């Protein structure tokens, strides 16, 4: 028994392009489901997103191991193929916008007429009701609208996005949550149902830390009400790496650590003397310690922070370094092959 066989036997149809919908199919396939992907004439727009003469690695990554069928749903033969697939399916994922649905035979009533227990999942950008229903969305547009870009960059420089496609990827996860919860309900009710997720609602869920913090609390400290926090935080820049130092398990040790680093004036600074003060000011330390930090080699710094003060220090890895790190290799979420792939990070004990 492995996590990769938890959903073995489950049959999924995926009719979606881009990232969010295909991501839902990838998660299900990573957990052992069988996914048939229907591509219509013209294929998936994600395929075209590559340099001249190259293929889209994102497209390959998201759609690996899916059973790919090119079907023209606007033909009678295509409809017959679809019907045969639906007759066997537990779940159908649809990322097609309503404006493009005409004549594709994907209306819920029709599909449920074929398989009454079918769980049908609609994935959209802004939602399927409301004033922006069915309007075109993108990762960047939703990040911007929901505040994910709010604290990046500085007020007088251009906006910065979160570098991972967090909204689209997590919308895929949200879709899987919805279909699995609907499956659980079907296990005792016998009924299928229509479920929906959107990039907008997922992005708002990802911002819950901030949304609740702005409830109108009695004590405003730390994070500010408006926009940016001040200068961007690029971490500590030592001689050969940028890194993050986290002393939360031993915060009283900061003055002593600052002394060892060679920042004697900061060691006596009340902003860094107590845990409560540090909570507010710790993010100022990278800039303030910069003059001495650049003389420290990461290995020496690591020894000092970890061994002497029981703090945590991690390098700000780039993507290639992250993939190659011994811990990442140890947990086995990167599957070797051509190309290598990232699998759903769950294991059965």
């Amino acid at each position, binding site marked *: *028994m492995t996590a990769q066989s938890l959903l073995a036997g489950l049959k999924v149809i995926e009719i979606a392009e881009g990232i969010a919908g295909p991501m839902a199919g990838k998660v299900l396939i990573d957990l052992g489901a069988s996914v048939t992907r229907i591509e219509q004439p013209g294929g998936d727009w994600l395929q075209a997103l590559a*340099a001249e003469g190259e293929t889209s690695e994102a497209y390959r990554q998201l759609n690996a191991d899916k059973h790919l069928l090119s079907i023209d749903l606007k033909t009678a033969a295509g409809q017959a193929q679809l019907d045969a697939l639906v007759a066997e399916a537990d779940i159908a994922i649809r990322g097609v916008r309503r404006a493009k649905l005409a004549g594709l035979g994907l209306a819920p009533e029709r599909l449920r007429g074929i398989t009454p227990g079918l769980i049908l999942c609609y994935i959209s950008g802004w939602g399927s009701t409301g004033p922006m229903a069915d309007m075109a969305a993108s990762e960047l547009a939703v990040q911007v609208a929901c505040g994910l870009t709010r604290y990046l960059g500085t007020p007088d420089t251009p906006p910065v996005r979160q570098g991972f496609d967090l909204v689209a*990827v997590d919308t895929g996860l949200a879709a899987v949550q919805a279909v699995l919860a609907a499956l659980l309900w079907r296990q005792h009710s016998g009924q299928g149902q229509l479920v929906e997720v959107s990039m907008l609602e997922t992005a708002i869920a990802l911002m819950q830390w901030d949304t609740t913090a702005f*409830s109108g609390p009695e004590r405003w400290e730390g994070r500010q009400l408006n926009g940016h926090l001040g200068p961007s935080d690029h971490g500590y*820049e030592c001689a050969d790496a940028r890194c993050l130092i986290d002393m939360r398990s031993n915060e009283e040790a900061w003055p002593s650590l600052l002394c060892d680093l060679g920042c004697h004036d900061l060691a006596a600074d009340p902003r860094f003397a107590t845990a409560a003060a540090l909570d507010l000011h710790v993010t100022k330390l990278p800039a303030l310690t910069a003059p001495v930090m650049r003389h420290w080699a990461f290995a020496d710094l690591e020894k000092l922070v970890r061994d002497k003060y029981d703090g945590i220090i991690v390098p700000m890895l780039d993507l290639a370094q992250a993939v190659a790190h011994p811990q990442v290799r140890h947990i086995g979420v990167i599957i070797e092959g051509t190309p290598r792939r990232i699998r759903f990070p769950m294991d059965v004990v």
Partner: protein
Amino acid sequence: MESLVSNAQPPRAGGPLAGMLVLDFGQAAMGPIAAEYLGMLGATVIKLQSLKGDTVRNGVPTMKGTSTTFLGNNLGKFGIVVDLKSPQGKAQAKDLIRIADVLIENFRSNEVMVRLGLGPAVLKELNPQLVYVSSSAYGAGGPLDNMRSNEWLTEAFSGFTSVTGGKGQPGEFSRGTANLDWNGAMVNTVALLAALVHCGRTGSGGATTTSQLGSSLYSGVTRFTDVLAGRADAGTLGSGAPHIVHDEAFQTEDGWIAVSAPTQRCWARLCAALGHEDLTADPRFATNAARLANRDALADRLAAIFATTNTAAWCERLAAADVPHAKVPQNMTLLEALDSHPQIHAEGLVRRIPGHYGSLSSQAPHWRFEHTPPAIAGGPPLLGEQTELVLANLSSKATLIAALEASRTLETVA
């Protein structure tokens, strides 16, 4: 604030997981939020805390002395205090485990539960159908086992900061958001539900593991694809994207607007909306691959065009042309920005949840179900609020759920 849609919730017991009992042994974010999501889906969730309470109770900002992080991560739950290090507390936990469907914890190492005498083998003996997710910091074993993780450690370690930052600038932390913590909770929720579905089909539960490291890598799946294929990554691109040109924010006469043209048709519609159809005829910009190769030249052209009028005018044109776009909110608090967004406002996607600690602003459940509507059942519990009620109703799951759900008062029911 008043303009936010008030919280009109469907009646309780409607969610797809109604009748399930979830034990939240978690701390901070990744465990508690996953348990909270199962609660939104209809499960009855009991949060176990030590006498000291969850580690994030003491942060800022606060409402009635408790951090909003704790409050937001524990909506709709029932609270009990159990000292897992005492024999009595352990016995109480075991009584709960016998009747529960789910247990989730996110101690930094998978070994913590073993040390508490509640490792996978013990749990299996107590309840073979229990679905147990142990969500650690860096995964089971390995050189970093037992090291703590949090949003910023995982941003540094997963490579996230290396692709987040101004164009060509060093990578930066996203200090004001905790999206990778929340992403970890999203992954944990999928893990729990997949194990529950498996249990429903086979009758067996069991222990599974996840990690913040693994979840963070997974959230970057699309961005990792180049290095996984042996290519170089593009690094920091400001608001730009590595493979789509253009997909970026531009300065207008009075602010910034995010604009994305992921498909060839969309690119043509964008050019028409800009009044510059000539761009589509320029061979340097004819295909996405050509635009990738001439990214900077095109950015200069587009910047000059967007500067000619204001954001509202561009929004109107781009909406009419079906081009993905969004106004970058300026001089507004987060809630003002969310509330002034036409779709968020009209659909009531940010709500007020009443409770002991005051009225909390919160997401609406992030899924919609035709027959089993999810709901946020109420605010967060006081420390140990339901300890006595829980301990008096341990005879069966149905008894306990009935007692707990009946105890929701008008003050706490959303």
